[in-house]
């Protein structure tokens, strides 16, 4: 219950006066309320917590952070640009 998980909005509809979305967590679908991120659209990624979107994820900020960490790791010099294949654990969702 304490974890917040990123998911992709695939459908939005109204239910009992609330904006509800169908959210894709890597193939597992759940409902989430969008009332706290009214700007969210289909295709956006949100942080979902106990059935509510609490934050819209920023792809530009995400890319910037990853680029920074790649620089710290000197990974491009050592391995070339191909990253993301050698995960610590397979994704759970």
């Amino acid at each position, binding site marked *: *219950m*304490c*974890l*917040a998980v*990123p998911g992709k909005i695939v459908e939005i509809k109204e239910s*009992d*006066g*609330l904006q509800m979305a169908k959210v894709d967590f*890597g193939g597992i679908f*759940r*409902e*989430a*309320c969008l*009332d*706290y*991120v*009214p700007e969210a659209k289909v295709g956006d*990624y949100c*942080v979902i*917590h*106990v*059935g*509510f979107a*609490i*934050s819209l*994820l*920023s*792809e530009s*900020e*995400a*890319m*910037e*952070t*990853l680029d920074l*960490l*790649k620089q*710290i*790791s*000197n*990974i491009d010099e050592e*391995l070339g640009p191909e*990253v*993301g294949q*050698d*995960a*610590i*654990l397979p*994704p759970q*969702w």
Partner: protein
Amino acid sequence: MKYVTEYRDATLVKGVIEEIHRSVTRSWTIMEICGGQTHAIVRHGINQLLPPEIELVHGPGCPVCVTPLELIDKALAIASHPDVIFCSYGDMLRVPGSGRDLFSVKAQGGDVRVVYSPLDAVKLAKANPDKQVVFFAIGFETTAPPNVMSVVQAKNLGLTNYSILVSHVRVPPAVSAVLSGPSNRVQAFLLAGHVCAVMGYHEYPPLIEQFRAPMVVTGFEPLDIVQGILETVRLLEAGKAEVFNAYQRAVTFDGNKPAQKMINTVFEGCDRKWRGIGVIPMSGWQLRAEFDAFDAEKRFQVETITADESPLCIAGQILQGLKKPHECSAFGSKCTPEHPLGATMVSSEGACAAYFRYGRVTT
């Protein structure tokens, strides 16, 4: 960009850990507040990859763990009512109260249900007008927006059979309590990314100013955590007492304004008792008077229930970062996830459960 696999890249994680090794010159004690981060750290073995100079201590950020015993007893009393459907996040069901837990209430015929979202409890109330539906509204700032929305939704739907048992706590007063403790060793904090997604991180600069402890907003994937640790070490080594946002993809300085507005509409600040720690002034939320009708404590008249904790369990010291789980004489023997003495062993986010499950004990 999937926002998950990118942050589990082992090569990148190793690279950042190497940078931590290069950056550290002295011993530092860092507390991660959030139980979710504790689990990620222990599960991925991050604590064992860090230089010996860095000690991670596990903070009081597991809502299941800090929910006081008497609130559990109140939940048990309410859930035992024959006309009640008692709804809870799953983690709470095995948390021992003074005598038993919610599972045993269910075993004895109580209608106790696990819900994924508090809106599911509202749906149950709508579908069962002849029953009283009570939701166990526990948590930090992350579950507050969902929990208050359930009250507003019940009100909007005209439901008179829905109420919540509130046990809400907040992170900044806990940070302040840890740093004010006479035995405090914590020099810096990893702040929980999802708490900051809701609240922003504008509440922390005054605490940083007061206690001279840097704080870094940190996410939950392995790469997020090692980045949070790296930024913390950099601030500590540079002698900078500042806040840094290492979870920029999800967190802004001001946080989620619509969520904060809704919280303030329904909740007001109050003193809260933390399990194993005691009362921290103005450390939680309660329903405002205008939402009294949705207050399960008032509806079921359980406000007077009090309880004392097991003297064997050292969860309070663990939650304050003073001791590690394996330093408890009951750890793994008298206290296991199957037969827990305290909430830190029960909750899937609890530090004791993490040490027990993943068997990673660093002495």
